[in-house]
């Protein structure tokens, strides 16, 4: 796992209080990890803070899984 993926995973674990082994790349925040809509907004804000990137609303709407978040951040930082 890349460094970005590890950091994303850690944020998700901390924020949603879920077990590390549940946070796979394909895990959906809402369907698999029990997040509500407010959690997804908070996660996006936490990613912005951690990685110093701006995630516009339309991009945030398409970040549904752990892998989506990693991909977006990798692209934004490239």
């Amino acid at each position: 796992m890349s460094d970005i993926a590890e950091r994303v995973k850690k944020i998700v674990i901390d924020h949603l209080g879920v077990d590390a082994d549940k946070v796979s790349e394909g895990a959906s925040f809402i369907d698999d990890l029990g997040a509500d809509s407010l959690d997804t907004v908070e996660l996006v804000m936490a990613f912005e803070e951690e990685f110093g990137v701006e995630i516009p609303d339309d991009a945030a709407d398409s970040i549904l899984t752990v892998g989506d978040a990693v991909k977006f951040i990798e692209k934004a930082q490239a």
Partner: protein
Amino acid sequence: MNGDRTMFDLSGRKALVTGASGGIGEEIARALHAQGAIVGLHGTRVEKLETLASELGERVHIFPANLADRAEVKALGEKAEAELGGVDILVNNAGITKDGLFVRMSDDDWDAVLEVNLTSVFRLTRELTHPMMRRRFGRIINITSIVGVTGNPGQANYCASKAGMIGFSKSLAQEIATRNVTVNCVAPGFIESAMTGKLNDKQKETIMGAIPMKRMGTGAEVASAVVYLASTEAGYMTGQTLHVNGGMAMI
């Protein structure tokens, strides 16, 4: 109640009160402090804040800022959050009036009142809400006014700002209820203050005629409602407006 905690105990809670250099705000700060809270006093008049701070003694911080300046509002939120180590209780009390009959009301008078009374509330609350959500505890208490519900001739701008505050509070209350952050309003009626002190005898007489209690309220009576809403005991109250008006309007 649990253990030796008394009802409405706010020990260890950190509160920020805007407009604490004015009559009602000062009483709110005193009351929260008396319940044990660490209190941040915001205001524009630094000497007044310092006087109140020295009267209260310990557990007090002062945060002067001009709420008409958007950058200062943001800075106020950041500073209070950092210096108090997290704001648990936010009391948006600061407000101004620029009265005048509607047909003669200038853009400036409209803008000034909406900016300070409503936009600064939005901006300061936005600054402090997210940390409250993260901590899974928060009390946001907005001081509106009876006239935000009933209207009042000569105060279209002020009434719009105060009614706006109620709608704002209800929306926010619904969004963040699951995070244990409550959002409520307190709506004072006629309260003894510098503002009502300017009324002449005839105006006062007219007002008294409309108040079943036949007297003005005190800042302390408004502050008691704030203490209740700030307390752990009020955990199931959200999106509500408490009217403290001697029966002047029963809503």
